[in-house]
Structure formats: structure tokens, C-alpha cells
């Protein structure tokens, strides 16, 4: 890569962070919350895109790695008092109860734990391909969830964890209010998820453009040719899977903090499905696509909430149908798959759709 490009990327990264800081002060709390979720889903979408979109490993185990990250971050950041209150069925292991680390350490630890499990699970199952790999990873993700349910003294089992400290910008806002009398209201600190998303985008981009990333893509395109060209399939698949798991863990950790409450039912298969939706909508192996679709899916998930409630159709009022918005997503996914087929960018899909209407 040329120097010029590097400066360009660094500048856009800095610009992105400035935009995030500004948005943090101008938007209202609800919007900030959604934006925060967008950033988290960008991290999660990209992590699965690395595994599935770029390396072609059909993994359905993402929720499992997110769970590991989420629980690690929760356990490392909750205060001792909250832990004592939360673990009322069975007290927590004393060592873990007193353990408390700074947020950034917790998030990194969450990622590393997920990466470790990704490596341990990946090493045996990555010998499998396609559907078999999907089933095996799905199984492991469920195993992780069941283990979490049963490790009462560490994870508080099915009761879940409550009171995970949120990251707010209260200190900064108070300071600004005191200093300038601005009357700002404190909210979630967007910087944590925002900067993580920016770093993830940069990391995945640089990885994919490097020789290793090209080798990942070669494996996706044709395994037989790739290994005949001297690419160690196993090593590269495990690498990609482990890196993907790392970011899944980081994303899971951020999700735990943003929600404040986690329990094992959160990490069911439907969570993996959401991430797959982002990857497929945005285009397999398309970084920009994943970013855009992560935002669209997150926002639509909120915007379509009215569908779950009783609908007033003018002449009649339907009963509340929880889960109706998920039907909409299923339809969107089907449409995306049918219309896109082998084309992998949102832009070309839009052009195709436009072309279709323009002709008539």
C-alpha cells in the first residue's frame, strides 16, 4: 500500500471518530442507543464476514463466541456488590467475585477468550466443509450456551447477569456543563463502540488486502487449487476462524455492556441468524456492504417494532403479533438472495433493480 493511501485512511478514521463524538452530543438518548447498537453490529457483521464471506467457512456458531465475550466482559466489569446481589442462588467463585478490571481490559479479555475457544473448536471442526461445518459449529454454539446455563457459580446460570455497568459520558458532560454552562444531558458514551467499530473495519480491511487475506479468498474460491498453490488450508482456516471469533467476542462484550443485562437465552441461534442476515444482505466478502447493512438491519429492527404491536389497519385492528417484524426480515433476506445471486455488492443490486424499473 502506498503512503498516500495510508494517510488517507488514517484521516478518514480520525474524521469518523470526530463525527462520532459530535453525534454523541447532538442526538437524543434513544438515537444514541440505536447508533451504539449499529456500531456493535458492524463489529459482529464484519467478524462473520471474515469467516463466512471471505474465507467461505459456513459457520453458524457466532452466538456462542459472542456469549463467551459477553460473559467475560460482564464478569470482569461488574462490581463486587452487584455480583453478590446477582448470584443469590449460588454464590460466585470468590476469586471471580473480587475480580474487577478496567473496561478496555475486559473487552480485550472477552475477545481473547472467544478467540481461544474459536481456536479450540476450530481446530477439530475446520476439517469439515460446507453443511457439515455449519452443523458442527451450530452444535458447539449450543454447547457453549448449555455450559453457561450449568455453570451456576461462574455465570449465574439461567438467571443471567444484571447490572453490568454502562459506559456513559456523564463525567465529560458534567465537566462541560460546569465549564461552559451548556446544559447537555449525559448519555451512553458512543466512543467505545464507535472506536471499536472503526478499528475493526480498519483491521479487517488491512487483513483482507494483505497476502493472508488473499489466501483466505483463494480458499473460498477453490480449496483444491488453493492447497495446490501451497496454501496450508488448515492453518489459514483456523487463523481466519480465530480472528473472526476474537471480534465476535469483542462485539458480544460491547453488546453486554450496552444492554446491561445478559442471560443465556439471548445467545440462541436467532442471534447468529441476525448476523448472517447482515452478512448476506451486505454481500459476502464485502466490507462496505456489511457496514451499511449492519446499520440498516439495526435501525429497521427498531423502526419495524410497530409490527409486533396491535395494528390499526383503518377498518380493523389486528391482535398483537410478536415476531412479525422477523417475518419482514426473512422476506428481505429471501429477496436479497434471489435478486443478488452471485453479484456481491449492494450497488450493483440497486443498479439492477433500477434497471428493471427503468426498462418498463
Amino acid at each position, binding site marked *: 500500500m502506498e503512503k498516500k493511501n495510508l494517510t488517507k485512511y488514517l484521516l478518514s478514521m480520525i474524521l469518523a471518530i470526530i463525527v462520532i463524538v459530535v453525534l454523541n452530543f447532538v442526538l437524543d438518548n434513544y438515537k444514541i442507543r440505536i447508533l451504539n447498537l449499529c456500531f456493535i453490529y458492524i463489529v459482529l457483521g464484519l467478524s462473520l464476514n471474515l469467516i463466512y464471506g471471505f474465507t467461505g467457512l459456513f459457520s453458524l456458531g457466532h452466538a456462542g463466541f459472542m456469549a463467551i465475550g459477553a460473559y467475560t466482559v460482564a464478569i470482569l466489569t461488574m462490581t463486587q456488590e452487584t455480583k453478590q446481589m446477582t448470584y443469590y442462588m449460588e454464590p460466585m467463585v470468590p476469586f471471580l467475585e473480587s475480580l474487577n478490571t478496567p473496561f478496555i481490559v475486559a473487552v480485550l479479555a472477552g475477545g481473547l477468550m472467544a478467540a481461544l475457544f474459536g481456536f479450540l473448536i476450530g481446530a477439530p471442526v475446520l476439517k469439515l466443509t460446507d453443511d457439515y461445518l455449519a452443523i458442527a459449529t451450530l452444535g458447539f454454539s449450543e454447547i457453549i450456551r448449555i455450559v453457561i446455563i450449568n455453570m451456576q457459580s461462574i455465570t449465574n446460570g439461567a438467571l443471567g447477569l444484571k447490572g453490568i455497568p454502562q459506559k456513559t459520558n456523564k463525567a465529560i458532560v458534567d465537566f462541560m456543563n460546569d465549564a461552559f454552562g451548556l446544559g447537555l444531558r449525559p448519555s451512553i458514551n458512543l466512543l467505545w463502540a464507535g472506536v471499536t467499530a472503526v478499528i475493526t473495519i480498519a483491521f479487517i480491511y*488491512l*487483513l483482507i488486502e*494483505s497476502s*493472508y487475506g*488473499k489466501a483466505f*479468498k483463494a480458499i473460498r*474460491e477453490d480449496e483444491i*487449487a488453493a492447497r495446490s498453490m501451497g496454501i496450508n488450508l488448515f492453518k489459514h482456516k483456523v487463523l481466519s476462524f480465530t480472528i473472526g471469533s476474537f471480534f465476535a467476542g469483542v462485539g458480544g462484550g460491547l453488546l453486554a455492556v450496552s444492554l446491561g443485562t445478559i442471560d443465556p437465552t439471548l445467545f440462541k441461534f436467532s442471534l447468529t441468524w441476525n448476523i448472517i442476515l447482515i452478512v448476506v444482505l451486505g454481500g459476502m466478502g464485502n466490507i462496505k456492504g456489511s457496514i451499511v447493512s449492519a446499520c440498516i438491519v439495526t435501525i429497521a429492527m427498531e423502526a419495524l417494532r410497530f409490527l409486533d404491536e396491535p395494528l390499526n389497519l383503518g377498518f380493523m385492528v389486528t391482535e398483537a403479533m410478536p415476531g412479525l417484524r422477523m417475518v419482514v426480515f426473512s422476506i428481505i433476506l429471501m429477496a436479497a438472495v434471489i435478486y443478488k445471486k452471485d453479484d456481491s455488492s449492494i450497488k450493483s443490486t440497486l443498479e439492477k433493480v433500477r434497471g428493471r424499473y427503468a426498462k418498463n
Partner: protein
Amino acid sequence: MLKINNITMRFGGVVAVNNFTAEINKNEIIGLIGPNGAGKTTVFNMVTGVYKPTEGDIIFSPSEGESHSVVDLRPDQIAKIGICRTFQNIRLFKQLSVMDNVFIGNHLRLKSSLLSSVFRLPNYAKEEKEIYEKSKYLLEKVGLYEERNEKAHSLPYGKQRRLEIARALATDPTLLLLDEPAAGMNPQETQELMEFIKKIKDEFNLTIFLIEHHMEVVMGICDRIYVLDHGAHIADGSPKDIQNNPKVIEAYLGVD
């Protein structure tokens, strides 16, 4: 340089290759011919580690004092010690650019670690620059540099074949296996291909082992030829000997 000692490959009850022996010396161009289904590609697959022979041994000695038994190695390890191949039914990385296809051929010689690659540390930056220069050189050699940004699958057939050879050359092989390089080519292209094979052999100091159905290619450029029929070795020798060998004629044309 390559010694194939009595290799046999059985798939269940089918004997695809039966007790085949061959020897290839440095800088030779060796042909492997035979009617369809004779087991030629199976021999290639055994040499490149796709299949492990049921019996027999394959010894590869790229240079003096260096020798490897190929049968216990994985395909990627075999590529690393200097055997690379092309495929009968072209296997390019279809959705990737022409340049990336050749770039990936260099990956096995990459020394930089993953992290220094991601963060573009000086050692990786230097290596990447070298890889780009080498890839550019190879693409110019096969006449595809102009199309470097095209996707591999959009190239016409003949160019895809040449790209596959360029990609194989990027792995720095000493022994190059070409599986029907002239398949689907017209006489003009075939002629060019023959010149091209001779040229790369000299320039990259290669030994070439090729499967081909076009007899003008085999007879025109091979130093020696092995003939397989129904998995069994029926003849070997110079192109002239082969042309007049009654067993070969029988295998190809049958007898009354």
C-alpha cells in the same frame, strides 16, 4: 529429479493406476499420454499429494543432496518443495482479479507474520513490493498484464490457461505439471503454447511433466513419453519410438 516407483492406486475395486514406474530427469519435458480414463490425471494427483498411492513411492529430489518422499506430504507441502501443477478443468480463483490470482501463487513463500502483514510493517511492505514486481513480470511473460484488473473468470479460455501457468510459476516450482495445457485450443494457439512451454522451461530452469491429447504438442516438445492404458504402463521412449510402437497404436485405435 522425480522417481515414481511402482505406484498403484485403487479406488475400492477399481485399479486406476497399476504399478506405474517413471523417472524424470532435470530439464526434461516428459509427456504422459493414453486414451481417456487411462489414469493419467490420477498419476498427477498422486505426485501432487491429492491422492496417496495405495502402493509404491514417489521420490522428488529438486537438487543434489535433497530428496523428499512425496507420498506422505500434503499438497501444500509438495508445492513448497517445488512441485506445482495446473488443472485439466481450469481451477482459477474465479472471482478474484488476474493480478490476485498470481499474487496468491506467491503466498507460500511469504515470510512475514500475519500481524506484520496486517499492520504493513516494513518487512511485509518490502515483500509485498517484490511480490507485485514478480507478479507483474510473470503476467507480462504470459501476456496478461493489460488484463490484470479483470476478474479471472471473464478471461477467454486460452488466457485462463495461460493465467493458470503464470500462477503455478509464481510458486517458484522446479517441476511443473501441466494437465492438458492445450485442451480446447485451436492450432494457432496450440503452436503458441508449444513455443511458450519451451520458453518458460529455459527461462525458469524447469522440468516439465505434461498430459496432453494433442499429439502435435506431445510429439513436438517432449523429450520422452510415457504411455498409460487402463492404468498400466504400456510403453515409453522418444516420440519417434512411441509413434511406431504397435502397443500404443493398439491402445489408441484398437485391433481387428
